[in-house]
């Protein structure tokens, strides 16, 4: 395989990271919390797609829509039950609760689906295209295109719609936003809904590319996507895209050219270097303390 193939595979994996990273970055921007359970929402989404498509024979599009609905509902419910009571508590308490939710989802899935890996049937049957001797698989193309569409729509949504503006206002200053008549609770719920809905899409794409599904499938892409969000500057939507793509490309190229065992280490080394040069990530803003 040549460099171009690796690069395209990297961009494809990076696109998935970017979609997951959006969920982290939006929730962090608004609720100032690391939603550790986000990776497990991806896993639930993948199981939902698997159950509806491979088991019940529904068309791929329908099963993805069902998965989105399930994950969206799940995200909102998690926020209401586990995170909302702790909104004014210390960050650490919320972090631990998120870890608790993560364990809960994993063990719930373990009970329902068992620990045996499931071979995931790709949601895309298209073989792909061959350009100048270079074959690009259908899933690769669809993944990259989906990511671009999501980015464009989300950027437009946040900039130009009322709920999007409310989201930006809440992330700047909760109290001020609420004084301006913005429904803070509804806005936070909306953010969780969007992030979790995207996680369902990411799950379907991830498992189509890497077709082994277990209750723990979500945690590694989750943590890497979170790294991507930090990489690009947490809280920033274009940052999530840049961070996700970079991470995916570095991971695949590192695997191909340096060492397949050390690819994770390489990703994290690059992350550390980036943060040392730009302490708030590539597109993040550094906030100075007022004296």
């Amino acid at each position, binding site marked *: 395989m040549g460099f171009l193939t690796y690069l395209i595979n990297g961009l494809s994996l990076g696109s998935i990271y970017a979609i997951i990273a959006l969920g982290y970055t939006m929730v962090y921007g608004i609720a100032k919390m690391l939603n550790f359970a986000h990776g497990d929402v991806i896993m639930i989404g993948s199981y939902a797609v698997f159950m509806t498509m491979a088991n019940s024979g529904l068309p791929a599009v329908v099963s993805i829509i069902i998965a989105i609905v399930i994950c969206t509902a799940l995200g909102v419910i998690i926020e209401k039950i586990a995170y909302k009571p702790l909104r004014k508590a210390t960050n650490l308490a919320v972090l631990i609760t998120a870890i608790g939710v993560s364990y809960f989802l994993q063990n719930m899935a373990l009970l329902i689906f068992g620990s045996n890996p499931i071979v995931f049937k790709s949601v895309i049957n298209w073989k792909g295209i061959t350009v100048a001797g270079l074959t690009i698989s259908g899933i690769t193309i669809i993944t990259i295109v989906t990511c671009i569409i999501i980015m464009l729509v989300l950027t437009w949504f946040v900039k130009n719609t009322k709920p999007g503006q409310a989201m930006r206002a809440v992330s700047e200053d909760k109290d001020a936003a609420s004084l301006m008549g913005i429904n803070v609770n509804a806005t936070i719920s909306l953010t969780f809904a969007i992030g979790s809905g995207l996680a369902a899409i990411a799950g379907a794409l991830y498992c189509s590319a890497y077709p082994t599904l277990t209750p723990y499938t979500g945690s590694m892409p989750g943590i890497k996507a979170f*790294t991507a969000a930090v990489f690009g500057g947490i809280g920033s939507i274009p940052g999530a895209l840049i961070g996700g793509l970079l991470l995916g490309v570095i991971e695949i190229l590192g695997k191909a050219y340096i060492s397949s065992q050390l690819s994770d280490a390489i990703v994290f080394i690059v992350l550390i270097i980036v943060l040392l040069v730009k302490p708030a990530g590539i597109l993040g803003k550094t906030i100075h303390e007022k004296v």
Partner: protein
Amino acid sequence: MKLLKNVTAPTQKLIRTVAAVVLVYILMEILIAAGCISSLIQGLLVPVCTYSIAAVALNLCVGYLGELSLGHAGFMCLGAFASAYFSKLTADTIPDVPRFILALIIGTAVAALFGFLIAIPVLRLKGDYLAIVTLAFGEIIKNVMNVIYVGKDSVGLHFSMKDQLSLGMSVDGKMIINGAQGITGTPRQSTFTVGVVLLILALIITSNFVNSRTGRAVKAIRDNRIAAETVGLPVSKYKLIAFTLSAAIAGVAGVLYSHSLNSLTATTNNFGYNMSIMILVYVVLGGIGNFSGGIIATTVLLLLPELLRGMADYRMLIYSIVLIALMIFNWSPDVQKWKAVNGLTLDGIKARFSKNKEVQ
């Protein structure tokens, strides 16, 4: 209690905690001798000590330095591998006790050294960024450990980061660190007694540290960095000292861990970010900055899955629900208010008891 009159309040607390640990230790030894403790629980005694020490280490970092580290399992990993490497290398040449003490010193020193090196860049960052970089370092350590090959033959030591073959050892060669298979056949010297001794040592060192001149400076930096600078404290120096000490103590936990197993490997479950987070759970549940609370939380959470074993498949699910419920119960402002109104806070309960006494 009269004896305690002349010492400061933090020292009193330390003495009480150590006394409690010793008491539990004696009780356990008696129960084991009487055959009342199942082998499953006996198997958990060393892990309880190991993770209690790790919780003490992380508590120093989170509670007193005020920085969230998600990489402490990495320091455990370093302590574990460095000490096991030494123990295995010298298993035939040095007698048990001095070898374990040397292994302990080496494991601790290696963890401290890396803690120091990592802290230099990491402590320039703030908050969540610092947390994610410590997580990254922890993952790197675990990852690199999996590709290290060291062998020994008549010629000497061979080192490779590729595979066993590229070591180029002669036939009599013996593997010491074998990549992802790690180190096998480390002398198993981590008994419950050793664990308790190390835990007490870790408690005394950290408690004395945070209640000394240096510790006060560290806490001042945590409370208000700018004010700390204006009273002349070299902020970076003290953050570095505290982080290094925290890493060193995590290294002690690693030494205890590696000498309790036949085969030592670095996996996601024992040295990955999952474990770092687990230790953080112990710390937060036990109360940030509260060493004895951390030990209690570690013990309860390690024993809980075993106690729930009767419920088989549901035990981890129940565990996660308990975790969420505990966090909400402990930290939610609404619940706090409800507890205060109903006199269910610690102070409220104390007041109630003392009132009863007066009535009698």
